[in-house]
């Protein structure tokens, strides 16, 4: 049987990878992917903890919901991204900075 800490380490790894992706990628969609990675990391935590919570089963339930929400978010995000692409002909977050101080 595998220790919680192992799962946590893995999820931490995923999380930071996601972090790195969202900070560096030149493409909104990839940024989105990075976010998904972070979400997965969180979900992994939840599931791993949820293992000890058989009755209420909070972890797994939560994961289910979060996956759903992730889907919704992604859908909306992609819609917006496409919209932006229509206006700016690019989806590079770095290049989309007409709103600033």
């Amino acid at each position: 049987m595998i220790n919680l800490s192992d799962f946590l380490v893995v999820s931490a790894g995923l999380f930071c990878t996601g972090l790195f992706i969202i900070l560096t990628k030149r493409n909104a969609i990839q940024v989105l992917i990075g976010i998904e990675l972070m979400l997965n990391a969180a979900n992994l935590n939840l599931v791993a903890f949820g293992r000890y919570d058989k009755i209420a089963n909070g972890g797994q339930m939560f994961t289910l919901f979060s996956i759903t929400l992730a889907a919704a978010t992604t859908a909306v995000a992609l819609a917006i991204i496409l919209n932006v692409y229509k206006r700016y002909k690019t989806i590079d977050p770095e290049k989309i900075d007409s709103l600033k101080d």
Partner: protein
Amino acid sequence: MTMERVMFYLMSVLALGSGIYIAASKNLVRSVFMFFVTLMAVAGLYVLCMADFVAITQVVIYVGGILVLIIFAFMLSGRETLSALQHPNNKFISINKVPAFLLAVLFFIVMLNVIVKGNVNNIPWNEKSVLAGEMMTAKDTTVNNIGINLMGNYLLPFEVVSILLMMALVGAAHLSRKERGL
């Protein structure tokens, strides 16, 4: 070294490796497919936590839903994004990535340190539930438990999510809809 462990290491290596590849590669399409691998691997990890149903959902929704969406997005916003395919510059460290890299690494170190310090392997309530035998084992199935929970404790979120999805649908549709009259 049980089978379980082997699987765990395999999965985690897959997940992290693919994740890092996504981070590293300039090539969008490849990175998307790598993402697919990651998701799969994570699903595998879910299974290792006795969360079979979640794993399935993961595969169905993510791989079946989100990933497809993303690919669609590529297709629609294709030109520029695909143009990256022609001349990918594959150097991993480009100067403007260094700070982000450092930050991520730092974050990781912090987390590790925290995890190690906060001896997560014997959190009080975990131990309690282990003693009470409320820890999931490979034998018991989670599906009907989940079903009952959805009908019971989690009824409200369940319903709310439906509205949420509806809203998201309406909104997304509105945004991506072609303007009439133009």
